[in-house]
């Protein structure tokens, strides 16, 4: 296999007994998004990792830190890379978010 995920890296996602651990389905989805885009050549894993280091660093340096959640930082890093690569911009994401938040209750997938 080529381009293996750096699972022994200190920035690797949470694992137990060698398997990835996801607390919530969206985390698995975001992990899948990042790996898919990377494998398709949209960005390099180093690009992503640099943003992840920065995102975690911001959390560490914050005075009122939220509880640790690896995938919160993972998602922040992914959004930053996508914004840097001009694949997604903040406005369109914000507008889509507003649409989803305001959609009628009872909607679910």
């Amino acid at each position, binding site marked *: 296999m080529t381009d293996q995920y750096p699972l022994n890296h200190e920035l690797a996602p949470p694992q137990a007994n*060698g398997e990835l651990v996801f607390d919530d389905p969206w985390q698995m989805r975001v992990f*899948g998004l990042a790996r898919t885009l990377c494998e398709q050549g949209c960005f390099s894993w180093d690009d992503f990792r640099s943003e992840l280091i920065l995102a975690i660093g911001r959390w560490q340096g914050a005075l009122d830190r939220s509880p640790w959640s690896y995938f919160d930082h993972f998602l922040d890093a992914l959004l930053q890379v996508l914004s840097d690569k001009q694949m997604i911009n903040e406005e369109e994401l914000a507008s889509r978010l507003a649409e989803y938040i305001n959609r009628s*209750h009872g909607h679910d997938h």
Partner: protein
Amino acid sequence: MSERSPQSIRAEALEALLIEKGFLKAEDVDDVIARYSERVGPLNGAQVVARAWTDKRFRDDLLRDGSAAVSPYQFEGGQVEKLVVVANTPAIHNVVVCTLCSCYPWALLGLPPKWYKDPEYRSRIVREPRKVISEMGFEVAAGKSIKVWDSSAEIRYLVLPEPPENLLQYDENELPGLVSRDGMIGVAER
């Protein structure tokens, strides 16, 4: 309906935008997730098997004392106090079960699959291994005998599948990709 977390809505919005813009398809993401769920756990074991295929001395060490041979890898996940590796040969096919509970070499294979803990597998694989393995999609050659190894809290077994016939055609890095979790339990060829 339970309230969804803001992060899950963000993730959903992001995926929808990426799909609409043609950067990826939902099925691509499904495939990647499936690959990691299936491969990453058993990858440790697959690396050990691949090395044993190409490194005769390591293979001998592994079969003599599995725990000692894998200890330099420092796999996390514990539970391989006493690892016994059993090699498939042209004459013998090995398969592993834990009839009492679901003892399993976690550090090498990740989390045990659901069926491994199933009472049906645990009882039937001992009585009619050939039939059970066949039902799981692999036909053990008629001339081969099947040896069933019963794990315990003290001893964990790992099957060393036979290498592919065209072993030399593969790049070393490709070999772990040929080894599946099921192959290392013994319910698949490799």
